[in-house]
């Protein structure tokens, strides 16, 4: 057996590091997999939501009588149907929020705060009738002035979104409410003095826009709330336990009364860690006495769900003549939309977290505006400030005449260095990533006219947290794994690999199910780059417990002591060499103590940050300003890749999304504060024809806190691309473009300006 207690298995491995076909692959490529929009139940009604056309307005009244009277309409819900709640900070996915804000995001009560804010909902016997009913609802709005720009929202005379939000983090505590929930700050040493004495200082003001996660599958759920108070919800999400907890809190229910069934998920990237539809569908279902389906259109996804915050970042970074960073001052503003978003903390921690820097002052402001409340998007809060920092580092390298990788290597954090939180880094691999980038042929390949190469590095903290994993044996000895973490990036394959490796059986002998909330213990959301690490640990520990039971059962069958039985390659081995296979032991389980299964719940600590270094080549068309990405390489410390193909996929996906952030994507609003590009035709994400094949380099610095050395990999790859692309454009044009996205008109103006 593989004894994994408290140390990393050294290998060689039978399964870890291999690339088997994913167990859910056939169902997905043949169209059989049941995603959220595919799901239906008998007697189901069709719901629809009326959304505000105004960016900011007081709701003076809602008249739903005509809608309720329309034949086929079975229920109508408004904010008045939601329970009154006391303010309470609750866990929301991996983040947290006030339960009142979470409830108001599902349905506005007194005011609408953005174009697309839900104001009423209906359930009817057909989708067409539901839409007709929406048109019959009369909402009396008092339209209020709105504000979209975060710097404008900080002014004293800005339209105020909330009467009860007072800025935390400033002295003296303010007596007037404002649109600024929080100022956060981090300071060490004397940044101003260090900058005054620096040999070179790079300074700039950078901006980024609201960008959406761009998952393919819109939000959808089916809810059925019975007269006895028990309910079921079917939804695709990043965490069905999170749906259960938040829906129960918003509706004042016991969690055991809500059973949430996970469906296949078509992407989330952080955007499906919370709730939007579920409490509304529940209330409609209770009123109608039937199951209700609510599904967003693409336009609703853009207008009413949470994107990543836009940002304004001003900074100065100084270095000595040899490239040693000596000081930095960073001020950033994150536009959180309608409700506090909790991304400022990670901006603070990730801004300079990958460099040793004795003197730094970082100040972050979270600001509310009349846009949908932001939500997590892959490494939430990190890419924006990283864009500014890594752009400035490139400028410093240019000023000092130092190779960009050499400059970063000179200052890169190493194990034992303190993180900005004060917790020392464990076995991290930023230096190894930089060295791998320098050694890659891409870094030294020749470039043509109008072409440029950029590089950037970055980190994401990753997470561990609570997870449950179960391993059981069928009567023939094949393995059944259950996990409470939705499979977004191939985790069923990685769980099967880790269970098979531990048990010593073929990969195909282990099948994995994502269990519903009534069928397995609590598991935190699939987010924070945590699932393969944390849920994987739970599955491995459960497999170890199953092995211990198998040894006992074999010993009982042989009438020898259990400690004389070894476990190797899926087989119990007696001291004299006699063997019993896992199938032979399982077949006799009923006669040796009963079924063989184990369940492990744990709170996984020991997670380590992921570090990434990206290299990007672009070609700029001087006539049109179009930026084409010619070549792209993503290097990352992945700990140890359980299923390398899916790890590479994470690196490629993060890079592709980051390239879109850099070149194309932005929310556009009209003068009334209405979103103008709420669809993929006008909100331009990269498509396959826009991008080259993204090369990946997996650097493996194993994590000692995981039996197979796993580190989270899903978020770090979206951190460096913004600056990698911008640095490449600077190299191609000689111009620093500080405002994202780098659209052709901006690039053309810079080149010819």
């Amino acid at each position, binding site marked *: 057996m593989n004894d994994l207690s408290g140390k990393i298995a050294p290998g060689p491995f039978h399964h870890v590091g291999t690339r088997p076909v994913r167990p859910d692959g056939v169902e997905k490529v043949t169209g059989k997999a049941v995603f959220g929009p595919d799901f239906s139940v008998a007697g189901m009604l069709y719901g629809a939501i009326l959304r505000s056309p105004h960016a900011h307005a007081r709701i003076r009244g809602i008249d739903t009588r005509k809608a309720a009277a329309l034949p086929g309409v079975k229920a109508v819900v408004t904010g008045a149907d939601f329970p009154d709640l006391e303010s309470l900070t609750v866990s929301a996915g*991996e983040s947290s929020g006030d339960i009142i804000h979470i409830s108001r995001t599902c349905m506005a009560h007194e005011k609408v705060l953005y174009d697309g804010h839900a104001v009423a909902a209906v359930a009817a016997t057909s989708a067409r009738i539901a839409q007709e009913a929406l048109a019959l609802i009369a909402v009396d709005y008092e339209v209020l002035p709105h504000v979209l720009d975060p710097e404008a929202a900080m002014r004293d005379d800005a339209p105020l979104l909330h009467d009860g939000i007072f800025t935390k983090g400033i002295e003296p505590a303010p007596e007037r409410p404002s649109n600024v929930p929080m100022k*956060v700050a981090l300071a060490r040493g004397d940044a101003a003095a260090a900058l005054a004495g620096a040999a070179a200082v790079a300074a700039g003001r950078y901006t980024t826009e609201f960008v959406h996660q761009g998952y393919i599958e819109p939000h959808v759920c089916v809810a059925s709330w019975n007269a006895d108070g028990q309910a079921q919800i079917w939804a695709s999400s990043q965490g069905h336990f999170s749906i259960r907890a938040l829906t129960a809190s918003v509706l004042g229910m016991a969690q055991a009364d809500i059973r949430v069934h996970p469906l296949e998920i078509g992407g989330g990237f952080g955007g499906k860690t919370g709730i939007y539809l579920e409490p509304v569908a529940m209330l409609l279902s209770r009123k109608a006495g039937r199951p209700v389906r609510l599904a967003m259109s693409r336009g609703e996804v853009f207008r009413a769900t949470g994107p990543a915050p836009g940002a304004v970042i001003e900074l100065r970074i100084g270095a000595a003549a040899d490239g040693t960073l000596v000081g930095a001052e960073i001020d950033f503003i994150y536009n959180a939309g309608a409700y506090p978003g909790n991304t400022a*903390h990670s901006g603070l921690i990730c801004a300079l977290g990958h460099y040793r820097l004795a003197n730094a002052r970082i100040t972050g402001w979270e600001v509310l505006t009349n846009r949908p409340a932001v939500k997590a*998007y892959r490494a939430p*809060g990190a890419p924006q400030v990283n864009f500014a920092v890594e752009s400035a580092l490139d400028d410093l390298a240019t000023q000092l005449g130092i190779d960009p990788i050499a400059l970063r290597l000179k200052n890169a954090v190493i194990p034992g260095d303190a993180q900005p*939180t004060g917790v020392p880094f464990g076995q991290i691999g930023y230096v190894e990533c930089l060295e791998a980038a320098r050694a890659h042929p891409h870094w030294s390949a020749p470039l043509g006219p109008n072409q440029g190469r950029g590089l950037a590095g970055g980190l994401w903290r990753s997470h561990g947290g609570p997870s449950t994993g179960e391993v059981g044996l069928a009567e023939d000895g094949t393995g059944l794994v259950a996990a409470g973490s939705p499979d977004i990036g191939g985790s069923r394959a990685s769980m099967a690999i880790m269970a098979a490796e531990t048990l010593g059986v073929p990969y195909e002998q282990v099948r994995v199910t994502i269990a519903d909330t009534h069928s397995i213990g609590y598991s935190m959301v699939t987010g924070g780059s945590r699932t393969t690490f944390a849920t994987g640990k739970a599955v491995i520990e459960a497999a170890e417990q199953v092995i211990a039971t198998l040894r006992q059962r074999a010993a009982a069958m042989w009438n020898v002591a259990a400690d004389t039985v070894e476990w190797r390659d899926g087989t119990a081995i007696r001291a004299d060499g006699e063997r019993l296979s896992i199938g032979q032991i399982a077949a006799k389980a009923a006669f040796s103590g009963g079924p063989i299964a184990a369940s492990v719940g744990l709170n996984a600590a020991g997670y380590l940050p992921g570090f990434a270094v990206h290299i990007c080549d672009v070609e700029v068309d001087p006539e049109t300003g179009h930026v084409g990405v010619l070549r792209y390489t993503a290097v990352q410390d992945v700990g140890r890749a359980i299923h390398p193909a899916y790890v590479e996929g994470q690196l490629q996906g993060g890079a592709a999304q980051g390239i879109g952030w850099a070149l194309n994507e932005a929310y556009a609003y009209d003068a009334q504060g209405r979103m103008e590009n709420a669809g993929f035709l006008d909100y331009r994400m990269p498509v396959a024809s826009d991008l080259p094949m993204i090369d990946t380099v997996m650097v493996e610095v194993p994590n000692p806190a995981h039996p197979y050395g796993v580190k989270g990999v899903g978020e770090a790859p979206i951190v460096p691309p913004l600056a990698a692309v911008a640095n490449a454009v600077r190299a191609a044009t000689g111009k620093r473009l500080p405002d994202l996205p780098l659209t052709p008109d901006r690039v053309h103006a810079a080149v010819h300006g």
Partner: protein
Amino acid sequence: MARVVVTPSFRVEFPGDLAEFDIEAATVFDLVRRLDALWPGAAAFIEAKVSIAVDGELIGDWSTSLTRDSEVLLVPHIAGG
């Protein structure tokens, strides 16, 4: 007497006199109970928003013992995507 340090970036969320302080506590559970007595609501707040590191290591088990020399860091949960 454990030394408790609230990460500077996170002090905005805590009452001013609880930014850095010494406190008698046998375990992290005990520490959180005592913090809740000093600052009513602290326990719920910490459960929702805080990660705890003891002597340089993030811990998931609040039965972790604290000694006279323990340093406890309270750092923000960081949302993930």
